[in-house]
């Protein structure tokens, strides 16, 4: 689908390292999170284990997030996350059109991967939303639940923990949905597996 020939070095080592760890922690958190949410604590050992693993994985994910955050603050990879507001909606629409209709007609991707822009508009939007809105909120609300005594005690009469819990569940759910869509969209490379190879060896 893409029309460049020599491979582009798009994923520096630190982003690959961050990404693989992030994926592993997310998977762990989703699995343990679900088993906590739908727990049956009569099997208390398993429940406690799930809580412990969830807590540890959450802390590790937060530390790992710092790699992503600092890396994209200070290296040139961060430029890929700058959304150009002008015409962004139009570009989103044409990318959406490509995914819903274009791919079935074997049309070329409207925004081929280049060294200047490695994400198509939908990728860019979803990555920014996940990495700069949802993950920070998951981390913050997670800290609030880990240390319930620091959480604001009540806001208009409802325990602060309720909001925190709700936010944590909501964001966790969004990450889960994102992951499913993300992995599926990663099959849209030159071949089904080529993007997965890229995020491991760095070359697109």
């Amino acid at each position: 689908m893409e029309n460049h020939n020599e491979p582009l070095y798009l994923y520096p080592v630190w982003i690959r390292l961050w990404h693989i760890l992030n994926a592993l922690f997310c998977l762990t958190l989703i699995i343990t999170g679900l088993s906590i949410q739908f727990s049956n604590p009569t099997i208390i050992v398993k429940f406690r284990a799930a809580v412990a693993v969830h807590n540890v994985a959450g802390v590790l994910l937060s530390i790992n997030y710092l790699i992503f955050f600092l890396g994209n603050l200070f290296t040139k990879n961060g430029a890929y996350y700058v959304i150009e507001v002008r015409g962004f909606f139009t570009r989103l629409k044409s990318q959406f059109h490509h995914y819903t209709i274009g791919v079935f007609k074997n049309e070329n991707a409207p925004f081929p991967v280049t060294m200047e822009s490695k994400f198509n508009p939908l990728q860019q939007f979803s990555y920014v939303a996940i990495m700069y809105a949802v993950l920070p909120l998951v981390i913050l609300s997670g800290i609030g639940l880990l240390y319930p005594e620091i959480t604001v005690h009540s806001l208009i009469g409802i325990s602060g923990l309720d909001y925190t819990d709700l936010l944590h569940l909501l964001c966790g759910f969004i990450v889960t949905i994102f992951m499913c869509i993300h992995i599926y969209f990663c099959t849209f490379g030159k071949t089904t597996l080529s993007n997965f190879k890229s995020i491991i060896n760095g070359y697109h």
Partner: protein
Amino acid sequence: MIYRANVRPAWVVLVLLLCFAIAFALAKSSDSSSSGKKAETQEYPEKVNLAKFKNSETNELCLKCHGQSKYAYENAETKKVVHKRMYSELIIKRDEFYVSNHKGFKCTDCHSEDYTTFPHSGNLRMESKANCLDCHGGDDKYAKFQFEKIDSNFMASVHSQKHSQDFTCWMCHNPHTYKINARTNENLKETIIYDNLICLSCHSDITKYELLTNKQKPNILVKHEWLPNQASHFTNVRCIECHAQNKDTLIVAHQIVPKSLAVKKCESCHAKNSILYASLFKYQVQENIKKQGWFKGLFLSETATIGPDQNNTLNIISLVLFGFTILIILIHAVIRIQKSH
């Protein structure tokens, strides 16, 4: 309008985080200052004027000695004044007695008249003491407290079944200090802590515990280790919510069940039909609705703290949305594969 927003989102997040941290710090400091004020204004009935209490004059004759940690009397033979220590169990704390429910009674309403002489006769040790039902049983005035039902529940509880006759009402409800709480106190937290301290008066105090049993006292903190956020649970939930059979009424939770029957499932509380709504919380919500109207009473009361997803709707919605996502992905994939052939 043409403009380029070329700010890296990481900077935006950094600025937002900073704002959040400042707001959080401000909220925390106002939180702690307001709770500080509350503690100051709480009335402390230490220096109250005793004369205003009914029978206080007669009762002071007893409290002269029993109201403090030492007492004095004149030895009839040596004519010397002797100072002695009062056994701690025999000390009646004035500040607690005069705010308790029984504050209007004379000591001799329940204790023998013979106590009015000193030294007290040794035979008085054999005096049988009244318990709750002796006064409160079969009295219409107290019908709403359902003392008879409390008694039969107590008889079925482990406290009664597993211990000797020595386990009486007084083990938990000290007649000299007992103060009705849930019905009069709007502060749910205070009621919860008051009630839990009753349980802890034995279950965290080996000397009192040993009076009733030869078993080794279990360590409550260790026993409840499985419970996440132990401290939050201990200060926000009454022990009896999980350890007593709750029969959908406010007061009658006296049937303490064996530990094998104690509630251990999170969803017993954090779900639809939470057991917490069977008694204290239900009562508080009803009271709040009466006082503050339907909306505020139901949604904005402190009782709305046992989990945001009371009726499982969020779980169901999220499962449906998740299924939908997977379905769309599958359909998309199938069409893609078909078209590429």
